[in-house]
Structure formats: structure tokens, C-alpha cells
């Protein structure tokens, strides 16, 4: 990951009609990284992205986009997929992609040629001359994504890109994001589905109720939690119980507790010496979801789960 920042924001604050939507957001997106902004619906993700792109101005704080304080100055090398997808229904897929490129300074003819290539490479060659209105929602979303990258931007901003897509299209989109990142493009996307961020991102920002609860590497977020130990023993009681940490709890004969700071070896020795009779012992690294709950708090995590559930119901 590069040390140069593609996006840097400090103390971004925005309120609508007196209600604060974003309360002092700080983020730093290194060039060439895939960066995720996580949070439940209404957390302030979209407002943050719109402020970064200069669609709305922050009430306070400042941001730079590819080194510029005025985002429109670098519009030619930025791609943006908004949360609410927007295409002209009467346009053909090729023209829609080329038009989005033209808005970013790509000559129309070049845009048309690249659009054809993008469509053909992604198995949509038959749809080159089809009007947008004849496409399914998922397909239209794919077209808009092509329009977002047709001008080969250095920075791509995607607002809830997986929203409304079925599992197959979500997989395709993940693949496309990885391809773009592999080509050196910085990708920043917002999502309320943790699994996408977990699979794709190197760095994340967890936002809850307008504030950044965590900003850093995914691994750092996970490291906020100690690895979890699951233990099943033959002996129900004995001196080995003294080796378990204070928060250990047992359910159906299985003990669950955080791995002590001293590591696994002293624990194993104490269990064996204490005659626990180990039947099963596993150490699990916590997932991003667990880290999210720990970082953002139960309430925000519950909001996130509700957002995910609503999303899945809508997709179904």
C-alpha cells in the first residue's frame, strides 16, 4: 500500500435542517488501496462520500481528493457510482457508458469503443445497442458501473455498490473491483454488508451515527478482539478450571473464552497438568463482524444487522 493518500478528510461535519448527519469524520485512504466505509443505513456514509466528491460542501472540516481541495479539479480521473443509480432510460448501453465517460473528459468516440469492449468482455455484447429501459435492475447497475470506470480513473468511489444485486452479480462486482485495484486504481466503497468489506478491503472506516468508530487496517480491527478459544473436556471439574480466564462461559459442555495474553502454550500446559482431559480445542480468529460489534457497539451493530436483513429481503 502506498504512503500517498488518495483521499484525506479531517473533521468533516454536515447537518441537514439542524440535524447533524456527520459529526467530525476523519479518514485517510492510501493510493491503490481498497477502502471500505462500513455502517448501518443512516450512519452518514453517503453524506461522507458526497462531501468527499464535492457534491455537497461540509459545514466544517476539510478534505482533499487526489491532492486537490476542489474535487471537480480532478473529476477527469475520478469515477463515482451513486447509491441511487441514475441512467437515461432511452439511451443505449453503449451511449450511456460513453456519455458518463464524456462527462469525465473522455472523447465520445473513444468512450463508445471502450464501452463495446467492456460489454463484450463481461458477456453483455448482445446488449450494446439495447436501451437502458429494457435492462434488468442488476444489468443497469452493471452498465452504470462500466460508465464509472470507462475513462480509466485513478480513484473510484462506489456508494453501496452491492445493493440490489443478486449473489452472482455481487461476485462479478467483487471481481471487477479486485481487477481495478490490481491495475492501480484506488477504490473506496460504502456498504452495510460486512462480508464484502471483509473480503475486499485492506482498510476500513466504521461509521455509526455520524462518527468514525474505527479507522485502519481490517487486521487491526480484528486484533481489537482476542482470539476465541472453544474447549471441550472429559472432566467436568478439577484444578484445570483455575487456568480459564474470568470471562469464560460454558454452554452444553463447551467452554468459550478469549485466548489469554500469555498465549496458547501456558494454557495447554495448565489444562493437561490439571487433568482436564482435552477432547476438543480450537482457536478462532474473530471475524470483522465480531470486531464491528466490539468497536461500534451493540446498538450500531443491531442497526447494521437490520440494514442487512432489509437488503436481503429487498433482493429476494
Amino acid at each position, binding site marked *: 500500500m502506498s504512503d500517498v493518500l488518495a483521499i484525506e478528510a479531517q473533521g468533516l461535519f454536515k447537518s441537514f435542517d439542524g440535524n447533524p448527519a456527520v459529526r467530525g469524520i476523519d479518514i485517510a485512504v492510501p493510493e491503490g488501496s481498497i477502502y471500505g466505509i462500513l455502517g448501518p443505513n443512516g450512519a452518514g456514509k*453517503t453524506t461522507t462520500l458526497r462531501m468527499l466528491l464535492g*457534491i*455537497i460542501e461540509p459545514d466544517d472540516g476539510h478534505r482533499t481528493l487526489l491532492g486537490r481541495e476542489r474535487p*471537480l479539479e480532478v473529476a477527469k480521473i475520478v469515477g463515482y457510482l451513486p447509491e441511487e443509480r*441514475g441512467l437515461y432510460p*432511452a439511451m443505449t448501453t453503449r451511449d450511456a457508458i460513453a*456519455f458518463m465517460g*464524456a*462527462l*469525465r473528459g473522455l472523447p465520445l468516440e473513444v468512450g463508445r469503443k471502450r464501452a463495446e469492449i467492456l460489454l463484450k468482455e463481461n458477456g453483455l455484447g448482445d446488449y450494446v445497442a439495447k436501451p437502458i429501459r429494457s435492462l434488468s435492475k442488476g444489468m443497469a447497475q452493471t452498465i452504470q458501473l462500466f460508465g464509472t470506470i470507462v475513462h480509466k480513473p485513478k480513484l473510484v468511489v462506489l456508494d453501496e455498490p452491492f445493493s440490489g444485486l443478486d449473489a452472482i452479480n455481487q461476485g462479478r462486482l467483487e471481481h471487477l473491483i479486485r481487477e481495478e485495484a490490481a491495475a492501480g486504481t484506488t477504490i473506496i466503497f460504502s456498504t452495510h454488508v460486512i462480508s464484502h468489506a471483509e473480503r475486499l478491503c485492506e482498510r476500513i472506516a466504521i461509521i455509526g451515527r455520524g462518527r468514525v468508530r474505527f479507522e485502519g487496517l481490517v487486521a487491526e480491527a480484528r486484533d481489537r478482539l482476542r482470539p476465541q478459544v472453544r474447549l471441550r473436556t472429559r472432566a467436568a471439574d478439577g484444578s484445570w478450571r483455575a487456568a480459564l480466564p474470568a470471562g469464560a462461559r460454558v454452554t452444553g459442555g463447551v467452554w468459550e473464552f478469549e485466548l489469554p495474553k500469555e498465549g496458547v502454550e501456558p494454557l495447554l500446559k495448565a489444562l493437561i497438568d490439571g487433568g482436564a482431559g482435552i477432547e476438543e480445542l480450537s482457536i478462532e480468529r474473530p471475524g470483522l463482524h465480531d470486531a464491528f460489534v466490539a468497536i461500534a457497539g451493540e446498538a450500531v451493530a443491531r442497526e447494521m444487522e437490520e440494514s442487512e436483513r432489509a437488503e436481503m429481503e429487498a433482493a429476494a
Partner: protein
Amino acid sequence: MGVLESAWVIARRDFVATVWSRSFILFLLAPLILFAFVLFAAQMAEDAERSASQPVVAIVADSDTVARLDAARRELVEGTGERLFPVLRSVPPAENLAVQARRLLADQEESYSGVFNGTIDHPFLTGPTRIDEGVGDRLQLIVDQARRARALEAAGAAPVAAPIERVVTEQAAGNLQMLRRKLASVGQGMIFGITLMLATLLLSNLVEEKSNKVIEVLAAAVPLDAVFYGKLIAMLGISAVGLSLWAGMAFLGYVLFQVLQDWMTLPDVSPAVGWPAFGLLLLLYYCANFMLLGGLFLGIGGQASNIRDIQTISMPVTLLQVMVFLLAINVVGREGDALAWFAYVFPFSSPLAMVAHAAKYETLWPHLVALVWQAAWVALIVRVSARMFRRTVLKSSPGGAFFSLAALRRRRA
């Protein structure tokens, strides 16, 4: 990308999307349909008025009187027009003239306005009091004409016509000024009419982008000023296509009628600045008028969240245009008073007022000043409209439209 370059991308998209749509054919046909409708309606109205409002007078008299009255009416109608005089219809006299007159006036089918009897030396007109003011006066003219004709006939003198011999000059100052005023009015009317036709299109122009969410893509990629300029340029181009077609058809129609019937002759008049300069100025002022009102309407329409809002604001916007037009018309007949100056300076009436100036006065420099002034206002209006759009629409607050009462309450709170 600069504002102009971005505006061009948007203008090109809008222009192609509009011109290649089926509804554009309807747009092109609209003035023709309107013209045909106006002709038809005018004809119908004239027929209806003729049959309904031209009074009919029953002539209960001997054949000599009837013949003299008919001849006199014909002579008068030739010089003035058919509709000025009542229709005379001969009715054979009955035994009791008073009873016959009452019966004729009560006849619902024939609908007589009055009953004439007697001779041209002792004429009587029976009818309600109020007919004396209109029918009675004109019938008196007919009777007088009949009497003059009979007197000449008795004297053996036939009236000899003395046609006025014309000495043709280049122009008469009064006539020239009158024709130039007419020319100014025609120029103003053309600009007003076309802009009025496009007003609703301009009002609803941004609703498409707002409803299909493209505005978010545009706002992230180009300055909002460019979106507004792009849309204005596209609409100007679309109106140019329409204008070319309508002007071409009008020219063809003129040539056709001229060849077939020698129906129309254009007055021999040239505007004060000369035809080439007047044509150019007319075009420039049309563009300026379109951009000024278009920028305003685009700004107002941008605040509307749906077509219902657009329909609601269409009426006041049309009234605004009419008021501006009336203000500009005022310049045609006035010379340098405060209201005329106001019309020249007020940005929305300035283009129309300056068209009248071009028709009436030779000086060209005021047009340069006016065009710069109007261009500055276009820039200002677009900037303010774009700012308002960004503040009230793009802030993404729920129902964040200018016309939303709920949003207004929230803002006040």
C-alpha cells in the same frame, strides 16, 4: 473540464435525446396545428358573428323604394364593407302595416331588428328604441344615398368617378415610423411566441435528471453551472431546428400564396438599422431572451420535485412572460420616457425592447451595450439557479424541494 466543455457534453446529449424522440415531431407540428386552429376558429367566429350579430331590417315598401334602397346600400358597401350596414330584406306589404310590423318583429325565425316602411321621402322605422343608435343611423345613410342618387338621376347627371392620382415617393416619415413600429411589434411577437412555447419544456427540463437520479452523476462530474448552460444551449438548438422548419414553411406558404393569388404583399419598409443588421440583432436578442428567461425557468423548474409542481408554476410563469412582453411592447410607441428606459434596462424585457429600438433607431452601439448587459445577467441567473439547486435539491434532505411546505417548515425550524 471547463464549464463550456462540460456544457457542450450535456447540450449534445439533451439535443440528440430530444430531436430523436417521437414527441419532437409533435413539437414541430404544434405551431402548424396552432396556426390551423386559429384560422379555423377565426373563420368560425366570423361566420357565427355575421349570422348572429348583423341586423336584418324588413323593407315593407313598393318595388321602386326597395330597388333604390338596395342600390344605395350596394354603393355604400362597396366603399366601406358589408358588415357595417344592416341586411335589407323585402317583404310584400299587408293590409294593416302596423299589425304586419308587430308580427314581423315577433317572428323568431327571421329575427328582424326593425321594419322599414314608407318611401325614401317619408321613411318610417319601427322597432325597439336601442336600434336607432346603430341600425337607424346606418339606414339613414342608405336612405340619404338613395335620395342623392334619385336627384342626380332626375337632373340627368351621372356621377363621374375622380380617382386619386398617386405621386409615389420613397417614404413618408409618418408612414415609415408606423411601419417600423409594426415591424418592431412583429419581431417582439415572434420572440415572445417562441419563448412562450418553450417555457414549459424549460421548466420541466431538470425533472428528468432528478427523477432518474442522473443529477447525482452530473453533479459529481461537472460544475452545476455547466449542467444549466448545457440544458439552455440544447434547448436553444432545439428551438433553432423548430424555427428553421417553421420559417421555411412560412416562406414556402408565402411564395405559394403569392404565386397563386397575389394574396399578400409585404410592406416596403426597412428597419432603421437595415435588414442585415436587424436580422442579426433579432437572432441575438432571441438567444438572449431565451437564455435569460430559460435560465430563470430552469432555476425555478429545478426546485420542483415532480410534474405536478411544474403544472402549478406554469401559470404564474406564463403570466410573468406576458407582463414582460407588455412592458416591452410599451417601448414601441413611447420615446425615452421612464417606462421605456425601464424596459430597456430590466434584463427580462431588455431583449424585446431592444428589438423595437433596432427597428426604430439607426444607432448600433446601444445594442452592443445591451447584449453585454444581458449576457452578464444570463451568467448571474445561471449562477444563482445552480447555487439554489445545490443548496435545496442536492443536499439530499427528504423532500428537499423548494416548493415543499414540509421542507419550508423544517427550514424555518
